[in-house]
């Protein structure tokens, strides 16, 4: 089979194209960063998840230890049921607590895991007992205004 410079160019083109795809997959995307095969799932119920989305990170001490796999609504308790997929490299005690936090003032929401003191570790399919839902900004502002009005009312009363 004869070889032409044309074949060399096409080979170069295909190699560079595949390299670009590999770059996108490994350096830009999160492929390989978190292997979903070596993970265990834990469920947690939240009163309010705020703006939490599927695929949001699960962090403990600021380190990403897993991702939110699924969010659904539980009609039995009327709470949000969140499935967390945790990396099996990081086992957590059974009485760990989960809370929904926001990174920065306008940043994305994530689940923060706080390790407990239990000797037993969480296993696949376990449920987290201690949870803290998202802080709703409107409630916070409402509470602040209420407290302020109460404080002013007291001040007026004492002035009279």
């Amino acid at each position, binding site marked *: 089979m004869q070889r032409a410079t*044309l074949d060399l160019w096409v080979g170069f*083109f*295909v190699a560079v194209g595949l390299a670009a795809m590999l*770059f996108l997959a490994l*350096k*830009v*995307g999160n492929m390989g960063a978190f292997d979903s095969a070596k993970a265990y799932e834990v469920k947690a119920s939240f009163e309010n998840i705020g703006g939490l989305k599927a695929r949001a990170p699960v962090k403990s001490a600021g380190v990403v230890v897993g991702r939110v796999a699924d969010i659904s609504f539980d009609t039995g308790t009327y709470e949000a049921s969140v499935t967390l997929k945790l990396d099996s490299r990081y086992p957590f005690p059974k009485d760990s607590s989960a809370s929904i936090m926001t990174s920065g003032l306008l940043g994305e929401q994530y689940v923060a895991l706080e390790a407990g003191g239990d000797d037993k570790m969480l296993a696949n399919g376990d449920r987290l007992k201690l949870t803290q839902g998202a802080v709703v900004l409107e409630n916070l502002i409402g509470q602040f205004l209420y407290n302020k009005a109460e404080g002013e009312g007291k001040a007026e009363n004492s002035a009279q």
Partner: protein
Amino acid sequence: MINGLLNGVRRLGHRVVDMLWRMGVSTRFFLLLLLHSGQCFRRFHLIIREVFSTGVLSLIIILVSGLFVGMVLGLQGYETLQTYGSEEALGVLVSLSLVRELGPVVAALLFASRAGSAITAEIGLMKATEQLAAMEMMAVNPIARVVAPRFWGGVISMPLLAALFSAMGILGGWLVGVVLIGVDEGSFWSQMQAAVDFREDILNGMIKSFVFGVAVTTIALFEGYDAPPTAEGVSRATTRTVVTSSLAILGLDFILTAFMFRGV
């Protein structure tokens, strides 16, 4: 007055019927092309030659424009993001807009004007100089010998070109954002990796570019094959290739985006 109105209606009707007729013929042409593709895979060097003329020769324009689009995204994104104090999200902005939309779409638009028009002109001229008729006389099927290899060459090149465009664009964004402006390099890459999903974003972008490749090459081939065998006919067919395939790319992009990125 009535005559003029009647003429107008007649012309409109003629155009609609003509369009339907062309749609039917192009569908038949596409199916015929797929039917005759088997032969050209046995003579792979024909496809290699077309990958060269559509893919390799488009490399420079794709790489350079990808770099500049990424650099502009880096500059504009930084301007907007810094007013919210979240310059670190620059990597996310640049990579997601490139991988999901700009990469496949702009690469396909460039591909349509760089390679699509060349395909139309080549085939139209082959028809005008009766080379296709001569092939038929020699019992060589022009669809199997001329059209199918060009189709597969274009379909193979398009996703590779789109991936190169996205990669170059992200490098351009990195160059402006990190090297020139001084956004933190670590958070640039790590936030990007946290936000870009392989299946959800990158694979969907590649599916898009594949669909665009099929659409652009089919339109270019059909316009060339269907062109009136005159100098004017070929030139009009070339123009029509660029216009129609650009519209097809943008329309298909909307449909595909609506399917791929709903919610979540």
